[in-house]
């Protein structure tokens, strides 16, 4: 699989996961952050965004 496809899909994945996190935290406060580290997820999303910007045209 091409590198640019992987980075693009990773960016979509983390974006969706963060969207899910905010949605869950609005509806059920405290539930998402009980199981997932939001700071780590945000860092992963940022890295995937950078990689997408660098390698996806």
């Amino acid at each position, binding site marked *: 699989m091409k590198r640019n496809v992987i980075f693009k*899909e990773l960016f979509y*994945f983390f974006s969706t996961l963060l969207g899910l996190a905010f949605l869950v935290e609005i509806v059920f406060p405290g539930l998402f*952050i009980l199981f997932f580290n939001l700071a780590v997820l945000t860092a992963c999303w940022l890295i995937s965004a950078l990689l997408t910007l660098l390698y996806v045209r």
Partner: protein
Amino acid sequence: MRIFWLGVIILILLFLLWQKVAPTGEWICEQNFKANSFNFLSETLGGKSCLSKVSPVDRAISNDNGPLIVLADPVYFSVFTPRPFSRAEVTITYRPHLSSSTPIIEAGFLADNKLWRYDLKPVYNLWLEKALVDWTSLSIDNLHLFQREKKFDSIFDFLDAWQNNTGEVCSSPHCLAVYNFDLNGFPPAINLDLLNKNTGSLVFPYMLRGAHQFYFYLSGEELNLAGELIDRNESKDKDDVEITVYHGKKNIVSLVIKDDGLEIEGSGDKGKSRPFVINQDGLKSGLYRFDFRTSDDLMIKNLSINSQYFSALHKIWLEGDEPINLVSDASYLQVKAFNPTALQVINFDQVELEIEKIYSQYEVKSKEQGDAWHNIHLKRGGLILENNGVFALNGEFILNPDYPRLDRSTVLTTNLDYVLADYELAQPLAGAWLQSYLDFSTVNFYREDGNYNLILSIPGLKLDQAASGYLEIKEVKIRFYGNSLWSKIKNWLNL
């Protein structure tokens, strides 16, 4: 690739929904403060613990790889649960390093956020674990009777004699101390026949602030309770009032007064006084309790009742610039000020105590330990007075139907002949660790933003008194129980 990550997202969503619903009806919150190895997955990638960090932080030392060390009383935790549950089993593993001035460890949940009342259960009681070894003891399950001199051969004989008031149990007042024992159905600690039946009426001369509980005695069949409410409007919240009168555990009268909303909350403009009246007849003469549930922003003035036997239970907060004279049946007094204008020198049984800082708790002990009541003199109001007894206007009409509690103020004097306790002895573990198990019905407990409020209390433990000791906590495990999804479905379908 896309199908794969979408599948992962759906699985995460399903996992979160499962956790939210807790379909099995169980939820476990566990915190090991002495975890030996660093788990990268849970420590870094995982979320926060369901048990919050301890607060206030200065009352405990929290090491990464050591037990939690509690240095002062009380400490609080928030316990996250995805939904409300009806029961909680709390297991605490700990190592006490406490002294006779700090003999009790209790834990519990916030049950009433207006009265700020916690439902506390015993974790460890030094008196029951070690100090009463010289006494004759009888036990049935968790019920323990300690006798200074053996008089009863079984707990049932003792309970029977006590319940039927045969006079065998006590030859002197307050010969029995209790701990964590449900007194419902047992006679009060005072002989009501000896009370003055012409109880008259009373207008409480001082202004009260915040939530209070009172005991009073009615000689007739009618209750006349009245007063005026004043909203200080210092906090931004609405200040509703709930007044409830109980006879034993039975609710006799309830009155809810909503905030009038005439002034802006938080403006500091004192509201106009709003009178309230409770008149109820057809009552039996006897002991009653009056709960005044509200916020600290509300004051009650000109409180009047058709009984002179009127005593505030455990806590009283008086306002006003005039001198205040009270009595209390407890031989110690805890004092706290929230406002610099309240700072003063107080007098407790001729012992002077200077209240020099706000938000600090001060304590004074009477030199007259054996007296039936102790005099309190304040130059002005603004102080919160607390102890394990009652507060009244004068000693003649002080009313405390509660038996002395086996706590840090207990003096094992010759007056005390029996100790009755509902207490599960701590289980010893390797390394001098102890484990205690507590069971709570959490149905009406206060829960805010998905969190229950857990307290760990060691009365008398203070930061500035190294001799009072400390407590090591290795693990806290809370297992919550509620309705399972299946039982809910069966209820909906009426199966």
